């Protein structure tokens, strides 16, 4: 079809018609059919009272729903958009019910995501109660803060240096807060327990029509008893008179304060069961009373017959230790911290049942099923913990500590026969070691079922597989594996692993790995750590029994987490507490905190003193022993706090600093140090309470806390540095030689020699030249090489007065290419012939770009086509079209997969490095030629290393290949 005015009109009309068809399916729909049904809100069980589950029946697949949008509010009159749930239009929803879980801390408000202003939801009637996201407008979001528990996540520097001191009058007192702007605080919300929340859901269809909401529903999140622990194991170490426990942790650990172990006599089981049943009744009664205040409180009648023998604070929000132990001394178990003082007769242990409980800050406690003693063993049966240590990981930014233990471990991971006779077998193995032991050789001794040695294999280069010859029809082998390392491992350090037949497969399967009598995989290592601000140890990582080290991540970035509940409309700030924890004081088990504002520190001391005097005066009026004890404890607590502030060396130094900024800077540095300073211990366990716990690691100098060091040089990059320096040196030498006029021979490259002829041909034919500088961006070296060639080609073309067309896919490459072509015209003395529009952008879409280039080739009938740079799947489509138009084509690329396509369709192809050499080749300048020559010599050096390395390692000498880094 020839294009003329009338046809253009037709095309435009057609386009408009198509576009007008777009929302076609939003007509003629009955809106009532698109309201979601069965919308319900239910409390999530076993959580900490911050979760609600919203469920509804999805609409039919035929209704082409694309997303459901959930709205939440604390009144039914205004609900804000919370989250959308995408649905695939084609497949629909496979279940009968859809859910949205509104739980944990999730997005509330951040400066990046919140809209500026409050907007009503689209497609709703004028009086709708549905709004879009909570906006940045403090007038709107401020009053919402009190409806949730809001966690503000604040960058360290923002908290320290952007906080504004804001005084607020509250209950006749002036309280000071740190005021921060929204851009400094990312806010995440959690629902508040026992508060009513309202929800609604709307559907959106394929044409993005927003349908009407359903009837608004509401629910209360309730704080529940924790989830029941599924597993508990209890072991008595007979000779040490020690009980050991191990338990599994539940999925949700939110709000759990204690891990506790109890015991009771088997005869008391009925009482215990009654007590458990009553706990359930109490929980139900609590809920019922919350919903209906007229219901009477259920008074507990049973007492727990179980006696506490172990308790620990959890490391919430981190994963706590899941093992514990209690020593029986003189028929008693005593743990002072928790007031445990329980009779325990280990003679009667078979009469005892053990039970584990999780208890929450809110007081709820859930017990596991009672168990009998799992095992009664001697201390010699406990696993041995190999010596372990903690060192700074080398060559890094300073964000890892390396925890390592034990000697290397090797295990066979699989086998396969390489021939049909089953006489050649490949054994795959893995080995684990740590920086203390460098493995030189691994020796495999293979025995048949009657114990005769078949072969011995020395694996001097560890490539994770060996190939051995075995007798025909082997179906059982024993492999003994030993190491040669930089350190002596001992003669009996030999691993044994059997290879046994595998069901439904004709290969042999590796059996369990044994070291002497220890089944390596039966035990696992758990690394626990604690920094100077933590009160409890937390799990760093659980490692399998064959692992020998762990890199523990120690973050540089320690954001501040603060509750946000108040705001100051006038100053446009969110108010947070200005105090922060600097360090933990382990002596009196309390935190050492300071305040951003020095005046507040003094005020805090005064407040504590007031409290002390208040309690001291109250004490005289108290009667019961319990009350007096409590008052004493409170007084002691405040006295401790005062001592903390006044005597702590860090706070003392800080408060002596006059300038506000220097003081905060000092405190910040101390906090960072405390946060990054970790101590470590290891527990080796079989998962069933048969475990050994190490003491905290102390190094030779007596340090027990370790802070990773930021390194200034990557030692493992040394060979790369050497190679670069050698190359650089060669460049200088060769450039010098070239400058002195030495004739440097360069192998002729046909594709480059032909460039002049190709341009000449275009000139003779009076047709333009096409130059495609690759499809990648400017950061690709291939593009830079292509642009260098463009410079030469454009200059030649300008001299011959031939048009050059340069279509570009990357818009950053565009101005550079334009500048190059322009300069080329100036240099050729033909600035008048430069047409800016000859270097032009087509599109960034890969195949659309090809379509554009192909169109140019056909319409403009280009005589010569250059394809230089990086190309992908489109290479053949372009080059084949070019070949069909009869153009001379010269290609150059380092894209290995595209080289064959260019070779078949183009007249000349620069393969790989020739593309990079082209610029130097064309310039024929000493500087350029020198580099090219240096490149040749370096390549020769690499070749020498490859050959020498191959020869040496064939002779079991692996020092050369091992001196190069693997990556």
């Amino acid at each position: 079809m020839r294009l003329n005015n009338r046809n253009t009109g037709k095309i435009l009309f057609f386009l408009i018609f198509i576009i007008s068809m777009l929302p076609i399916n939003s007509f003629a729909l009955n809106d009532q059919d698109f309201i979601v049904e069965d919308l319900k809100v239910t409390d999530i069980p076993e959580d900490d009272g911050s979760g609600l589950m919203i469920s509804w029946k999805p609409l039919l697949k035929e209704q082409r729903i694309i997303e459901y949008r959930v709205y939440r509010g604390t009144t039914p009159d205004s609900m804000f958009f919370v989250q959308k749930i995408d649905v695939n239009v084609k497949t629909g929803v496979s279940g009968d019910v859809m859910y949205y879980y509104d739980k944990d801390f999730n997005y509330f408000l951040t400066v990046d995501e919140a809209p500026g202003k409050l907007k009503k939801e689209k497609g709703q009637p004028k009086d709708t109660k549905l709004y879009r996201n909570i906006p940045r407008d403090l007038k709107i979001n401020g009053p919402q803060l009190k409806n949730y528990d809001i966690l503000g996540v604040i960058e360290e520097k923002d908290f320290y240096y952007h906080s504004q001191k804001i005084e607020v009058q509250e209950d006749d007192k002036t309280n000071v807060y740190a005021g921060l702007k929204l851009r400094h605080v990312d806010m995440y919300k959690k629902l508040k327990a026992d508060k009513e929340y309202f929800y609604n859901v709307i559907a959106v269809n394929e044409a993005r029509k927003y349908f009407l909401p359903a009837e608004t529903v509401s629910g209360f999140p309730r704080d529940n008893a924790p989830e029941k622990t599924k597993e508990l194991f209890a072991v008595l170490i007979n000779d040490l008179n020690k009980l050991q426990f191990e338990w599994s942790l539940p999925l949700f650990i939110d709000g759990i304060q204690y891990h506790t172990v109890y015991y009771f006599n088997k005869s008391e089981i009925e009482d215990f069961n009654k007590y458990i049943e009553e706990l359930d009744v109490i929980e139900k009664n609590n809920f019922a009373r919350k919903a209906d205040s007229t219901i009477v409180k259920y008074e507990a009648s049973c007492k727990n017959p179980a006696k506490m023998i172990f308790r620990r604070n959890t490391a919430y929000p981190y994963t706590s230790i899941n093992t514990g132990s209690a020593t029986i001394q003189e028929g008693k178990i005593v743990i002072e911290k928790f007031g445990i003082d329980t009779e325990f007769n280990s003679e009667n242990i078979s009469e005892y049942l053990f039970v584990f409980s999780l208890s929450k800050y809110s007081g709820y406690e859930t017990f596991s099923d009672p168990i009998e003693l799992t095992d009664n063993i001697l201390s010699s049966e406990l696993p041995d913990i190999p010596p372990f240590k903690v060192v700074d990981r080398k060559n890094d930014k300073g964000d890892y500590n390396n925890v390592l233990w034990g000697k290397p471990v090797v295990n066979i991971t699989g086998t396969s026969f390489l021939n049909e006779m089953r006489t050649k077998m490949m054994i795959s193995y893995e080995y684990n070691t740590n920086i203390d032991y460098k493995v030189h050789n691994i020796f495999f001794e293979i025995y048949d079922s009657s114990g005769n040695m078949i072969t011995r294999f020395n694996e001097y280069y560890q490539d994770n597989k060996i190939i051995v010859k075995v007798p025909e029809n082997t179906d059982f082998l024993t492999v003994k594996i030993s190491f040669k390392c930089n350190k002596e491992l001992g003669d009996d350090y030999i691993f044994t692993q059997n290879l046994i037949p595998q069901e439904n497969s004709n290969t042999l399967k590796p059996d369990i790995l044994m070291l002497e009598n220890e089944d390596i995989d039966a035990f696992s290592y758990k690394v626990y750590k604690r920094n100077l601000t933590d009160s409890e140890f937390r799990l760093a990582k659980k490692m399998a029994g064959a692992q020998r080290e762990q890199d523990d991540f120690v973050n540089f970035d320690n954001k501040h987490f603060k509750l946000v509940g108040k705001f100051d409309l006038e100053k446009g700030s969110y108010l947070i507490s200005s105090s922060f924890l600097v360090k933990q004081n382990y002596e009196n088990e309390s935190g050492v905190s300071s305040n951003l504002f020095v005046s507040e520190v003094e005020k805090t001391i005064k407040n504590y003193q007031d409290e002390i005097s208040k309690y001291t005066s109250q004490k005289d009026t108290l009667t019961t022993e319990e009350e007096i004890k409590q008052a004493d404890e409170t007084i002691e607590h405040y006295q401790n706090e005062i001592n903390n502030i006044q005597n702590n060396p860090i706070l003392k130094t800080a408060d002596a600093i006059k300038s506000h900024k220097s003081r905060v800077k000092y405190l910040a540095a101390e906090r960072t140090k405390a946060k990054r300073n970790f101590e470590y211990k290891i527990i080796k366990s079989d998962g069933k309470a048969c475990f050994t716990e190490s003491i905290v690691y102390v190094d030779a100098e007596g340090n027990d806390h370790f802070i990773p060091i930021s390194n200034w040089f990557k030692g493992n990059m040394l060979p790369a540095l050497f190679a670069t320096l050698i190359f650089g040196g060669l460049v200088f030498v060769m450039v010098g030689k070239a400058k002195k006029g030495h004739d440097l021979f360069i192998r002729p490259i046909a594709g480059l020699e032909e460039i002049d002829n190709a341009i000449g041909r275009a000139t003779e034919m009076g047709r333009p030249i096409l130059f495609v500088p690759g499809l990648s961006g400017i950061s690709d070296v291939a593009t830079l090489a292509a642009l260098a060639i463009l410079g030469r080609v454009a200059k030649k073309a300008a001299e011959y007065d031939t048009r050059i067309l340069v279509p570009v896919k990357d818009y950053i490459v565009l101005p550079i290419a334009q500048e190059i072509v322009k300069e080329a015209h100036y240099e050729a003395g033909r600035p008048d012939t430069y047409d800016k529009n000859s270097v032009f952008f087509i599109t960034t879409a890969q195949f659309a770009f090809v379509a554009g280039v192909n169109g140019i080739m056909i319409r403009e009938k280009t005589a010569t086509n250059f394809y230089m740079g990086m190309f992908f799947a489109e290479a053949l489509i372009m080059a084949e079209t070019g070949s069909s138009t009869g153009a001379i084509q010269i290609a150059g690329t380092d894209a290995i997969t595209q080289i064959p396509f260019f070779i078949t369709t183009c007249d000349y192809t620069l393969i790989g490095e020739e593309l990079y050499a082209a610029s130097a080749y064309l310039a024929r300048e000493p500087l350029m030629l020198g580099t090219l020559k240096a490149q040749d010599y370096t390549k020769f050096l690499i070749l020498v290393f490859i050959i020498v390395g191959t020869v040496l390692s064939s002779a079991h000498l692996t020092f050369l290949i091992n001196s190069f880094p693997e990556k």
Partner: protein
Amino acid sequence: MNFFDRMQNLDRRWIYLVVALAIIVPLLIPFNSKTYTTEPSENVYKMIDSFAGKDNKAILMCVSHDASTIAELFPMEVSVLRHCFERDIKVFTICFMPQSAPLVDYAINTAKEDFPNIKSGVNYCNFGYKPYSLFLPILLGMGDNIGEAVETDAEGRKVENLEIMENIRNYEDLNLVMDFSASGSVISWITYARVKFGVNVAAGITAVMAADNYPYLQSGQLIGMLSGLKGAAEYEKMVDVFAAKGKAFSKETINNTWIKITGNDIPTKFKKARIGMNAQSIAHIMIIVFIILGNIGYFVNKNKKKG
């Protein structure tokens, strides 16, 4: 101008036409061709089949590709699911790419249509999409406890409470992981799940990427592999020959059995790969024929010139 001259100067559009027909015709009109099964595919089948009827064994399918490679990978997923449904094998699905989530649903729904008794949470369970940042934590966590690592399934149910999880705790039970991808993502399963927990790993992979995974197959780290449309076609055939008829695998039977894909005995969705394979074979053969004709013409002309 004789025939050979004409062949030498053949307008390329004739070639295009023949290639187009070679691809379109076999797709529209399926014909029966022989599908040979190869060992990597057979190993996958045998391993999965060995779990038949055992409620303490299960497989996990990890779908790690987007819609651009469904032509090759989708028939594989459907056949593996069909195999599991036919033989009462517990199957789990998971994906770590948001684009894969609908594909998993689509594959399950496609395979499930013919099995009215198969139920979610009982015979199969879709863990759904999990963010990629959780890939390693989940992969390693499943070595310990699947319920804890995965937490909830695609329908939001707590995994450990589902009926399917009875007797399934960790990799000891979930003994085969099959990764479907157009990239090298299966390597992570090998290095972490296989090495640490000894779980069997198999791959379903596009033909282009298959070469990269041969070394793992050779070393036994991959117990088997379905490569490209060919692998899918092989698996389809094995399911037809054995699973659909309730038989156990036998090497002799498979190579001596012809399965007719013409007719309506087998629904199209279960023979897609074989139909596609027909087209691929014909296209390859056409190109080879063209090359041979071109060469004959070249030699005839050369001789003529000499003569």
